[in-house]
């Protein structure tokens, strides 16, 4: 399933750039019941991290109060050309990654 990553492809050194991520996940809270009264088990993304050329620049712990298909926007200083790596980890062994590259002039 898809993830939408939005990183500027080019930036000037020292610019503060915005990074947006949107990923497919139901974020089942673990507080809902089926019509016959059974608890629907929790199935959420619990953590997100973004690394810029190997160094972590942003991290988040997510809880059931984060809406389905989690959206996150955050910032970083454009330092060098290279790669952003994104990682989402969650319940039931959920793990997914994505990456985006940037040219810094």
């Amino acid at each position, binding site marked *: *399933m*898809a*993830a*939408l990553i*939005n990183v500027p492809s080019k930036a000037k050194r020292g610019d503060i750039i915005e990074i*947006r991520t*949107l*990923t*497919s996940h*139901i*974020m089942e809270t673990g507080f809902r019941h089926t019509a016959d009264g059974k608890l629907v088990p929790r199935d959420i993304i619990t953590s997100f991290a973004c690394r810029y050329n190997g160094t972590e620049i942003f991290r988040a712990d997510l809880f059931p109060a984060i*809406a*389905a*298909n989690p*959206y996150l*926007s955050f910032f970083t200083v454009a330092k060098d050309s290279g790669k952003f790596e994104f990682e989402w980890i969650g319940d039931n062994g959920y793990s997914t990654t994505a990456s985006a590259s940037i040219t810094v002039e």
Partner: protein
Amino acid sequence: MISWRAIAVATLFTAAPALLAGEIPPDARRSGYTFMGPDTRAMQDDDTTNPGMLFVLDGEALWAKKTGSASRACADCHGDARSSMKGVAARYPSFDKSLGRPVALDQRINLCRADHQQAAPLPYESRDLLALSAFVAHQSRGIPITAGDDPQAKPFVAQGRALFMQREGQLNLACTNCHDDNFDKRLAGAPITQGQPTGYPLYRLEWQTLGSLARRLRSCMTGVRAQAYDYGSPELVALELYLMSRARGLAMETPAVRP
């Protein structure tokens, strides 16, 4: 001449008052978008924040993926959807000559799977069917709706219109009672829209996922405490067709975002 026309109009009103009551003239038609708050509008406006785009991306991957015993992808016949599917969703539901009835876009995708890919049909509201529908309909974004223009579709538009006007359920309400007669007012804090289906399949914040027009109609029927028509039933397709013809001229928005 003028007096003749006045008499003709007067006759029409007296002869068929129920038929004309409350119907929204073309220049007063408004997308559900215009009833939303600025935050929900912003979510739809930007493709990098519109959660419906996740499904469009999935649909794009499915479009190019070989499937069924024919091992054929949508793209093998239709090529680049950006050109081949442009404007298609604005004409759906569309009359199918061999079946002799209109079919909705998701039904057309399943017919294509059966006839050309020899693949099993995708269940209604399944992620893959919604994703393919969203990807195809997204190619029509900005294009004015013309569904129902086909003369062969007219009897089915009329059937859908009759269903729209018919009171049903324990609350004894017809679609028209809210969506023609009372739009712009509020029901339990939420604005009543005109019910123009411009952005399906769309991402509904309440659903927290993408859903079809059929799903939306079924939840409206549940709302008035009526027995909802089954997915794929001729009644639902006729209602969809009438709603699309009623939205004639409004631009497609898929994937729209709604509260």
